C-alpha cells in the first residue's frame, strides 16, 4: 500500500530535473573526494587537493606514506616486496587476514605466469597454495588455468592479468591496513554511495516501484524507459 499515491509515475525528465536541483554543497563533495584520496592512499593527489580545494584532510598525510609504498608495490607487481612491507608494518595482519594473504600470493602467481615462468609458477602454487578452502580453490583453478593458454592475455581469464586486478588487491590490502590501524571506516565513503544506490534500487525494484534506474554508475546515465 502506498503512502503517497502521487509518487506513482516519475518520468525520466522529472527525475533529471530533481537531480539538477539537488542542493549540492561543494564542501561536502570535496570532503567525499578527499576521503577517497586519503583512504585509498593517493598522497600526492591528496596534497594537491588540499591546496586547491582549501580543505583539510581528515588524517595526517604523512601517515599515508607506508600505505602508499605498499600500494605502489602491489600495483607494480612487486608482490614479495609488498608482503615484506606489510609484515614489517603490521606483523599480524596477513596471518589474520587469510583471504587477503591468498590474494597476495595469487597475485604473485599471476606475476610468475605473466612473466612466462611456468615451472616456477607450478612449484609456487603447489608449495604455497595447496592447503586452501573451497572458494580459494576455485580462484586458484582459474589462475592456474591461465597456464593452459598459449596467450593467457586472450584467455577467458585474462581479467586476472589486468592492471585493475592489481588495483583491486591493492585496495583490499589498503583497507586491511586501515582497519588494523584505525578501526575506523576502511572503505572510502564513495563506496558507500555506490552501494547505497545499488541497494536502494534493488529495494525499490523488489517492490516494483517505478523510477528511472541508474545502470551505468560511471556516466550516471539514467535508464531509458
Amino acid at each position, binding site marked *: *500500500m502506498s*503512502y503517497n499515491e502521487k509518487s506513482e509515475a516519475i518520468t525520466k525528465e522529472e527525475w533529471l530535473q530533481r*537531480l539538477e536541483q539537488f542542493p549540492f554543497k561543494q564542501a561536502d563533495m570535496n*570532503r*567525499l573526494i578527499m576521503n577517497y584520496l586519503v583512504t585509498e592512499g593517493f598522497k600526492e593527489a591528496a596534497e594537491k587537493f588540499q591546496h*586547491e580545494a582549501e580543505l583539510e584532510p581528515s588524517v595526517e598525510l604523512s601517515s599515508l606514506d607506508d600505505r602508499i609504498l605498499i600500494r605502489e608495490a602491489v600495483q607494480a607487481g612487486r608482490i614479495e616486496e609488498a608482503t615484506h612491507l606489510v609484515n614489517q608494518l603490521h606483523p599480524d595482519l596477513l596471518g589474520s587476514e587469510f583471504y587477503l594473504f591468498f590474494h597476495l600470493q595469487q597475485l604473485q602467481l599471476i606475476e610468475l605466469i605473466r612473466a612466462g615462468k611456468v615451472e616456477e609458477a607450478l612449484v609456487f602454487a603447489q608449495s604455497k597454495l595447496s592447503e586452501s578452502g573451497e572458494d580459494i580453490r576455485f580462484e586458484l583453478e582459474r589462475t592456474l588455468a591461465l597456464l593452459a593458454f598459449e596467450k593467457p592475455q586472450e584467455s577467458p581469464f585474462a581479467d586476472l592479468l589486468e592492471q585493475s586486478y592489481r588495483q583491486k588487491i591493492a585496495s583490499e590490502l589498503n583497507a586491511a591496513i586501515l582497519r588494523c590501524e584505525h578501526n575506523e571506516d576502511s572503505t572510502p565513503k564513495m563506496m*558507500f554511495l*555506490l552501494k*547505497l544506490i545499488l541497494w536502494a534500487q534493488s529495494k525499490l525494484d523488489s517492490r516494483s516501484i517505478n523510477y528511472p534506474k541508474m545502470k551505468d554508475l560511471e556516466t550516471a546515465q539514467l535508464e531509458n524507459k
Partner: protein
Amino acid sequence: MDFEHADNDNDNEHNPNLSMENSSASNSSSGSNNSNLTAATVNAAAVSGGSTAAALLFNIEAEQRLLTDTEQEQQQQQQQIEADEHEHSPTPIQQQLPQADESRVEAEQQEQAQQEQNQDQVEQQQQEQPQPEIIEADTIADTIDAGTIDNDNDAVVERIDDYDDEEDEGGDDDLEAEEEEVLEEEEAAVEVDVDAVVAAQQQAAGTAPPPAESAAVAGTGTGAAVAVASASGSGSASGQQRLHSVAVLPSYSTARAPLPPLLRAPRSNHNNNSSTSNNNNNNNTSNNNNNNTSTSSSNNSSSAATSSRHTRHFYSNNGSHFSNEMYAGGHKSSSQRDGHSQSHSSSRLAGGSGGGGGGSGTRNANQSGHQGVDPLRLLYPNVNENETPLPRCWNPHDKCLNIGLSHNNLRVTYKGVGKQHSEAAGSVRTAYPIPPSCGLYYFEVRIISKGRNGYMGIGLTAQQFRMNRLPGGDKQSYGYHGYDGNSFSSSCNGQSYGPTFTTGDIIGCCVNFLNNTCFYTKNGFDLGIAFRDLPTKLYPTVGLQTPGEEVDANFGQEPFKFDKIEEMMRDMRATILRKIDRYPHLLETPENLMNRLVSTYLVHSGYCKTAEAFNAYTHQPFDEDLASIKTRQKIIKLIQTGKMSQAIENTLRAYPGLLENNKNLWFALKCRQFIEMINGADIEHANNKVTATTQTMPTNQTSVIQSTKAFKHSKSGGNISGNGSGNGSASTNTNTNTNQPQNNTANSAVIKPGDKTDPKIMIIDDNSNKCPEHDSNSMDVEMEPCNSHSNGDSCSNGNASVARNSLDAIDEEMDVDVSPSSRNYGRVIEKILEFGKELSSMGQQLEKENLMTEEERQMLEDAFSLIAYSNPWSSPLGWLLCPSRRENVSTTLNSAILESLNFERRPPLEYLVAHAAELLKLIGQNSLGEDAFITIDDVFPQN
C-alpha cells in the same frame, strides 16, 4: 485557540500603532531641532547616570528574572484577552492606519523575503523621529543580549502587547498623550539611581502580578549601559495597560547587531506590516539628520524585539506544530512557551553578564533558542512534518461522541452511558497517521482509571475505521484490550496476547515500518509482536467503553516508560548500514569506477593539479585538455575570491559567445559583481587604498584592544567575527555573523562591570570602528540624487550619529583617520553607482525581452537593497555578501562553460549523490521505512 493567536492579535494591534508613531515621527522630523533637544536632555541625564551605569548593569540579571515573570504574566493575560480581542472592533489607533499602507503591505507580504523586511526596518530606523519609545518588556533583555545596548536619546515607542478591554473602550488615548507619558516614564527611569532601582526591582519581583509595570532603561554616559526595572509609578500614569513594560534604551550606536538573528526569525505577516507600513511612511524622506544613527539604533532595538518575539513564535510553533485548533486549553503550549521564554531569559543572562554584545551574545540567543527543540523532532529526525506531520494529540474532530478530550487533547474520558453492548464503545484517534519515515513509531497510554469495567482498547486504525468500536474490533484496525489482554486484528475474535491492564498501567504501542509489525509494552516491558503485515497509513487510536474510563496519551512529548525506543532505532540504523555495506554490489572493479568518478569530478570542478596527479597515478585519460581546465579553474577561482569583473572579462575572452548568448547568466554574473563591489572584493587598483582603509579598522581596533586590557578581556570571539565581517570576508551564511566591530567594542566597554574606561580610548576606538558605517552612509547619500547631502556632509553625519558628548574629539579623529580615504571612497561609490545603472539597464533590457525570471528580479532587488544599509555586512541581506554565495555563481558559470564545450553540466559523481538522495526520498514516499535511518548525509564523511 492558543497563544499564537494571542500574539498575533497583539502584534496586529500594536503595529499600526507603531506605524502611526512613525508617521508622526516623520512629520516632525522636518523640525528635528525639537527632537534633538529632547535627545540632548535625555542624553545629559544618561551621562549623569553614567558613573553608576556599570553598577546598574549588575541589576540586569535581577531584572531579567523579573522580565521572565512578567512575560509569563503577559502570556497568561493574553490568553484571557485574546477572546475579547477577537470580538472587539479595532481600536481607534488601528482605524487610523492609512488604507494605502494596508493594501501595499498585503501585496508586499507575499513577495517580500525576510531580508526585505529587515531592510525596511532599518530604513525605518533611519527615518524615525527621536522619540522616546516603549519596548515590550520581554524584548529588552533580548536586545541587551543581542548586543544592542543602545544609547538613546530617542527611544523606540512600541506599545505593549496587552490591550485589554478598558483600553479598547476608552480607546481615545491619542498619541500625544502617550508620548508625554512615555517621556515621563523615561525621565523617571533615567533618573532612578542604583538603590532606587534595586528597590524597584525587589518591589517588582514581589508584586510582579498583573498590574505591574517594568521599565528598563539602558543609558549611556561614557558607554555604560543601564538597565533599570522600575516597578513603580508610570504604570498608573498610563492607566490603560494592565501590564506595561517600558524600555528606554539609550543607544550607543550599536544599531545593527541584532539584525542577524532576524535572519533566522521566521517571518510573520504582521511584522511585515509594521515594517512595510513604516517604510511607506518614511521611505525616501531620507532625513540623514544628526540623530540618524542614534535613532536607528534605538529603533533597531525594536526590531530586535520583534525578532525575538518571532523566534519565540517559531519554536512554540514547532513545539505544537499544528496545535492551533487542537489544544483546547492551551496548557501545553503555554508550558512550551514558558520553556522558551526561560531559555530566552537565560540567554539574556549570558548576554547581559558576559559581554553582552557582539557575536557571542547573538549566538547565545540563537543557541538557546535551539535548546527548545521539540523532543519528537529529535526522536524522528527524518520525518518531514511539512509533508507528513507527526501525531501529537488526539483529534477532537475524529472521535466518537461519547468520548471527551481534555488536557490539550491528550486525555481521553468516556462520557457515554456505558451500556454493556458494543454500541456503547467509542474511540478517538490522532489527526495524522504515523509517518512511515519514523521507521519505528511508539506512543504510550497511561490508564488513569479503568472506570467501571476497564473495557479499553489501545491500537491502530486505518482511515476507514468507524469510531464507535474499540480499535481491533473492526476492519482495518488493530488493538490490545485491557479487560482480557487479547489482541484483536481487524476482527471481533481476539487472540490471546498479553496480560490484562488496568488503572495505573502504562501501555505502549510500537510500529515497526521496516517489517510492518507492531508490538506492545506494559509498564516498560516488551510484550512481543502482536500484529504482522500491517498496512502503512495507521492512526494511533484508543477506545473506551464504560463510564469512568480515562486514559492519558504520550506521543513522545514526555519521556517514555519504555526507554528502549532510541536504542532500538540506533540498532535498526546500524543494521541497515550494515546491510548496505554488505550489499553484493556486483561491480567488478569498483576501484576503477571510483577512480573515474573522482577524476571526472576533479576535472569538472577545475582542480587541475589534483586531477593531473590523480590521473597520472591511476592511468586515466583526460577528456578535456589541460589548458581548458586551467582556464576554467582560473575563472572559478576569480569568482570565488570575488573578483567578478575579471571573471567576466576572462569568460568573454576565453569563451566568446557564451555570455552573449546567455544573457541571463551574464546578468547573474553582473549582479554578483555589484554585490562584490559593495563587498569591496571587486575593486580595481585605484580603489585598493579604500579597501585597505576599510581593512585597517580592525587593526586600529586591535591596537585599542592592546592598549586597554579591560577591553581585551571583555571582548570575546564575537569581536573577531565582527572584524571579519567588517572586511566582508568572514561573514557566514548563518545568522551569527556580522556584528559591527563598534558594537562589540561599545558593548564590551558597556558590559564590563566596574570598568573604568578611559573616555579617550573609547573615542578612538569607536571612531575607528565607525568608519565602515560612515563610509556606507556616504554611499547611502550618493545613491539618492535628490538628497542634498554631499559626501562631506554624510561624513559628519556618521560622526554625529555617534551620539556622545565629545563630538569635537571625534571630528579630530575623523580628520586624521578617515578623510584621506573619503575621496577615494567617493570614487568607489561613483563606480558602484555607475555600475548599478548599467546593471539596472541590463535588467530592463531583459525585462523587455521577457527573459527576466522572478528569481533574477529578486536577485537584482536584493543586490540594490544592500546599498540601503550603512553596514551591509550586518544587514539582513548580509548573506548576499557571504563568500559561500559565490559558489552558486561559479557552479552555474562552470556548468554553462562545460555545456558549451559539449561536456556534461555536472560531474557523474554529483548525479550519483543526487540520485541516491532521490532514491531515499522515493523509499520514504513508498513507506518502506528505511529512509528513517539513512539520509544522504551519511554518504559524506563527517570530519
